[in-house]
């Protein structure tokens, strides 16, 4: 018996876009989210402004949530996790758990949109002292402060005079095993650098980088304005350690352009931490029997030609559950996954009615 329903796991940008797209196509969708609210990481991690366009994250996600919440074809299940699956493409039976109670729903296809976790610098080299020094923070911590409309040193509550970003923390790092580029950190760091300069014109901002990777239009949106308009200093060099001297952090590394070691005092050090598969992504992959790549992200049929089809027929993936993605990738993938998932449902429905 073919099911006419699409199950979407994850209520972040990819899941919301998939649900909206499915409803637009006239397909019923069940949207499962383990948190108590929709919106995903941009909401739970208190994102301030989204690239591109620097629109307010809460506003953007609010529009996406409203589009789904008000659609009669979408059945939203909050505080719910997926605990089991039987069946095959066209007729899956999926077990959902909520408040200790289990329920089985049928689905013709499934989209996994369970996203990523921010890399925890506690896993990285200890020299950056994330857990040792209050004024060493992550992009996520900085974003939360910017969202709250302030940017101060956590140790003193005072505005900083000198701030730097260290790129590629938890990305492009063979030593810890995350060999991939997380794609968004360079853009986010540049965006935050601009926001800090706008908020604190007297504050000097530095970005220490291996390469700056700002794809497509990010070049003119962020990279050049950061330097030309906002006077952010980009310094090509790997940082080896951060130590505390007096009341300031000392950042040590190599200025590879000048070919010399450097030792620079800072008030705040922001670690540009990358992406890792979320705990939810890993758990759902295990539950649904999806093949994962060596980093734990969900494996796809072809990274270029088919980035949404998983190893299990009828199950598709969208967004950062399949690897480091920016919002551009995520929205595009959500559309592609919805198209393939709805096509699967309808194909099986036709096959059933033909029998």
């Amino acid at each position: 018996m073919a099911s006419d329903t699409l199950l979407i796991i994850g209520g972040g940008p990819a899941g919301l876009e998939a649900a909206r797209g499915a409803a637009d196509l006239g397909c019923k969708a069940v949207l499962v989210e383990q948190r108590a609210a929709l919106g995903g990481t941009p909401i739970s991690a208190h994102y301030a402004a989204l690239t591109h366009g620097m629109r307010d994250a809460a506003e953007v996600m609010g529009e996406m949530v409203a589009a789904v919440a008000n659609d009669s074809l979408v059945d939203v299940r909050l505080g719910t996790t997926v605990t089991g699956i039987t069946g095959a493409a066209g007729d899956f039976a999926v077990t959902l758990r909520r408040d200790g109670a289990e329920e089985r729903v049928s689905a013709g296809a499934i989209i996994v949109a369970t996203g990523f976790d921010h890399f925890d610098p506690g896993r990285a080299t200890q020299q950056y002292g994330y857990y040792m020094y209050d004024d060493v923070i992550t992009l996520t911590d900085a974003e939360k402060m910017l969202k709250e409309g302030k940017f101060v040193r956590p140790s003193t509550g005072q505005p900083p005079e000198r701030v730097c970003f260290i790129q590629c923390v938890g990305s492009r790092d063979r030593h810890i095993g995350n060999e991939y580029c997380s794609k968004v950190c360079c853009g986010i760091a540049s965006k935050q650098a601009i926001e800090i300069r706008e908020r604190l014109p007297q504050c000097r901002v530095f970005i220490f980088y291996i390469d700056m990777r700002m794809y497509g239009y990010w070049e003119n949106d962020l990279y050049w304005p950061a330097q030309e308009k906002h006077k952010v200093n980009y310094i090509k060099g790997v940082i080896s350690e951060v130590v505390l001297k007096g009341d300031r952090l000392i950042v040590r590394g190599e200025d590879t352009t000048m070919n010399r070691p450097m030792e620079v005092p800072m008030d705040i050090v922001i670690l540009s931490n990358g992406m890792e598969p979320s705990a939810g992504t890993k758990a759902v992959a295990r539950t649904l029997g999806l093949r994962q790549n060596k980093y734990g992200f969900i494996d796809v049929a072809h990274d270029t030609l088919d980035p949404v089809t998983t190893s299990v027929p009828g199950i598709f993936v969208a967004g950062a559950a399949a690897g480091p993605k920016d919002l551009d990738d995520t929205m595009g993938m959500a559309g592609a996954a919805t198209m393939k998932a709805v096509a699967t449902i309808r194909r099986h429905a036709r096959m059933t009615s033909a029998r």
Partner: protein
Amino acid sequence: MPINLPVIQPGTQARKGPFARRPEDAAESLRERTLELAERGEWIVQRVPEPHLEVPTRSSGVKRVPLGHTWHHKSCGQCGHIPGYSTAIFWLHRKLGLEYEDPRDQTSCTAWNYYASATANQAAQAAVALRNFAAAHQSGYYPLIHCATSYGHYKEVRAEMVHHKALRDQVREILKKMGKPLVMPEEIVHYSEWIYAVRHEIAKRKVVDLSGITATVHPACHYYKLVQEDAIYDPDVYGGHRTAIVTGVAQALGVTVGDYSTWFDCCGFGFRHILVQRDFSRSFAVQQKIEAMRDEVNPDVTLTHDTGCVTTLDKSQFAAQAHTGVKAAIPVLSEAQFCALAMGAHPYRVCQLHWHAADYRPLLEKMGIDWRERWREFEDDVARLKANPGTYLTWDDAG
């Protein structure tokens, strides 16, 4: 130029919560791979003998450290430049009542030349290491490595041997010509790990008040920057952020450990610089390490745990003394010598501090050790030995 601001001690945890590395993020377990290869008949594994202690490693793992019945793989540099270093290690074993073997069937590890790019034959390098392991196994005692350069290199050799069958086959053939089996120890253990494991036993036997002593610690790059998972990291020392080696020992003895901003930096020895750019080594040791310690902590002593580190930090201060305006030097001791002094070892008969360059006598005075009287005793020893050619000091003399 260093920025001279006072250093704030690390202590209170950041508000972000406790720091921890996840066990699942640990690098592969070379110990497990070593045991697997033994099951496949590739080599013999020499198991860590009982009794042993377990110490914590970088990603919440465990390393087994033998208490006694150890085969002491000595260090060229210690025996040649800092003889009181090795003697202190042996003296500690004797005072703790732990049996050991001081073998004569041991070669240099040749790692110093390897790191200076003077030797580059992988099979020969590995064969030297495995020859020594085989010698330890044949003696029935478990290898304990005195030098961090040897230790680091042996860890690298183990990783190469685990991963490359062709190399194992090559080295097996070389050892066969010497009539020795292919043996890999279950754990590669540095003497400082043994001291760390028995630090509380040493502290119990302390006869010197160390409460007024401030020390800086220099951890050896060859110890914790090569095959990092194998080094001791303890949540109770630096919150697990840095290797606990030496610092944990000093703290157990009641010494105040002062932090300084170039803690992570090399002593200046480098992996090759001391051989190919010695002037750079000297400058680095003095300007980046000793002067930073002096300006930021002004310690009574700096403690370290490797041949090259003791030598470079200590002897380089000669160069600094040649310049005007250099303030008081900092005595440099291995933590083995410091532990022995704390337990009442003779500063000259056992720790042989007269081999050290930086003035250690103010430290002894602060520890309540009458170095003038001890030196007089040692001069009497020397006069006795001169009068009886062919004789030497014995453990009975050492006390």
